Structure formats: structure tokens, C-alpha cells
């Protein structure tokens, strides 16, 4: 049963991942990424991390990726040539690149399989192993500093983002200055 669920979501995420990378239209890529993220969240649940899985959907799929979509639409990057994908030149470089990529992919995959072959025995999940409370305790005791730093990082990121993306000398700003 679990294996079937795993297989379903693993397949889903692999296929979607390929779409993310391969699709010419950025909107489809982004939507596929959402699928990858949600199926990963399902796998997280299988791995006994429901809280992280929920957060993955809430934060990652629900907020961060929406931001991507938002920007894609704002700049209208989906269909336009702005991404440059449409005019990609075809040449020998592409061929060699493909061969190299495939080689690296296959080789690394083989190496991975070879190295990870043979299963590790897992303890069955216990209720307390899944609980959220110990996680919170850990986060707010041992890792409180990291938590605070992350909070600061987010603040800095927000400020930086709003400064960078601001339209310099825009009409609205000039007006606001006049008013102020």
C-alpha cells in the first residue's frame, strides 16, 4: 500500500520535474513545480513529517511559487520571446551538451543506485515521532538563534526586494513626494 502511494507520487514528481525543466512555457513549468512540491509533500507525510508537508504546501506551493507566477505574469514572460527560448540556436554545441547531460545523468544515477542498493531497515513510525510539539521545542530551544537569524534574513530580503524592484523615479513616487 505504502509502496503504491510512494510509486504514484514519485512518478508524478519525476514527470513533473521533467516538465518543469523542459517546457518552453514558464507558466507550465511553474505549475509543474507545484505538482512536484505537492507530491513531495505527500512523500513527506509518508516519511512521518506531516507538519513539514503541510508547511511545504502552505509556504512553498502556496506562497513562494505564486510569487513566481506573479512575476511571470507581470513581465508577461510566458508566451513572449523575452525568455529567449524560442530563438535558441541549434548547433553541434547542443548535441554535445545533450550527450554530456545524458551521460552525467545516467552515470550519476547508476552510481546512486549502486551505492544505495540494499534497503535500510526502518523503525515503524510512532505517534510521538510524528508529533509537532517536540519539533517546536527543538526549534525554540536549541535552534532559537538560527530561527531568529532566519527571521532577520527574511526581513532583509523583503526590504531588499522592495528596494530592488521599485521603479526608480516613477510617477507615483514623485506624486507621493509632492504630497509628503
Amino acid at each position, binding site marked *: 500500500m505504502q509502496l503504491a502511494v*510512494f510509486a504514484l507520487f514519485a512518478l508524478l514528481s519525476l514527470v513533473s520535474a521533467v516538465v518543469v525543466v523542459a517546457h518552453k512555457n514558464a507558466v507550465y513549468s511553474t505549475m509543474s513545480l507545484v505538482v512536484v512540491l505537492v507530491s513531495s509533500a505527500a512523500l513527506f507525510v509518508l516519511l*512521518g513529517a506531516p507538519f513539514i508537508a503541510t508547511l511545504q504546501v502552505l509556504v512553498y506551493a502556496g506562497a513562494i511559487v505564486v510569487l*513566481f507566477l506573479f512575476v511571470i505574469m*507581470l513581465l508577461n514572460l510566458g508566451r513572449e520571446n523575452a525568455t529567449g527560448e524560442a530563438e535558441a540556436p541549434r548547433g553541434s554545441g547542443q548535441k554535445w551538451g545533450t550527450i554530456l547531460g545524458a551521460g552525467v545523468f545516467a552515470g550519476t544515477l547508476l552510481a546512486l543506485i549502486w551505492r544505495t542498493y540494499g534497503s535500510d531497515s526502518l523503525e515503524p513510525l510512532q505517534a510521538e515521532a510524528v508529533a509537532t510539539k517536540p519539533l517546536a521545542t527543538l526549534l525554540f530551544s536549541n535552534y532559537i538563534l538560527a530561527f531568529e537569524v532566519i527571521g532577520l534574513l527574511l526581513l532583509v530580503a523583503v526590504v531588499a526586494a522592495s528596494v530592488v524592484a521599485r521603479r526608480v523615479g516613477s510617477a507615483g513616487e514623485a506624486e507621493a513626494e509632492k504630497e509628503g
Partner: protein
Amino acid sequence: MVPISYYLLLAGMLFIIGTLGALTRRSGITIFLSIELMLNSVNLTLIAYSRLLGDRMGQLIVLFVMAVAAAEAAVGLALFIAIYRHRHTIDLNRLNLMRW
């Protein structure tokens, strides 16, 4: 029970797909998405090991990774907007002002 190696294998494959995407695509947004893919595969690995070792730190690190990804997305996308405003493209092949 699903062996932990399956998860690791899946994560590895996702990571490679993401890497190839980041290396081969020209659109800044797609590269960004590929990087998110890589991050996600790392998250999967972390959770898997957290499960294997019975250590919650893995989950915590995933939390932090998410926060960092959020920050990164915010700043990165803002940069894209700024770049697009100046150059009217986010084709990374054309963003080569630093070229000698």
C-alpha cells in the same frame, strides 16, 4: 515499508533533473525554478534521513531551507523585475555585461 534508498534515489534524480535544467535553460525564471527543484530534492533527502536516523534536526533544516528559499525567491524575482525593466529580457545569454 518503503526502503529509504528509494527516497534517496528519487531525490537524486530530481536533483539531477534540476541541475540539468539550471545548466541548459536560457530563461532566468526557468533556471530559478530548476534551482527550487534542486532545493526540494535536498529537502526530500533531509526528511528521509531524518526518518532514518530518528533525528528531528533534518525536519528543522527543511524549515530553514524553506525560509531561505522564500528570501531567495523574493530577492531573485525582484532582481528579475529590475533586470527586465532595463534590458527587456531575462534571457541569461543576453545578460552578459560582465563579459570581457
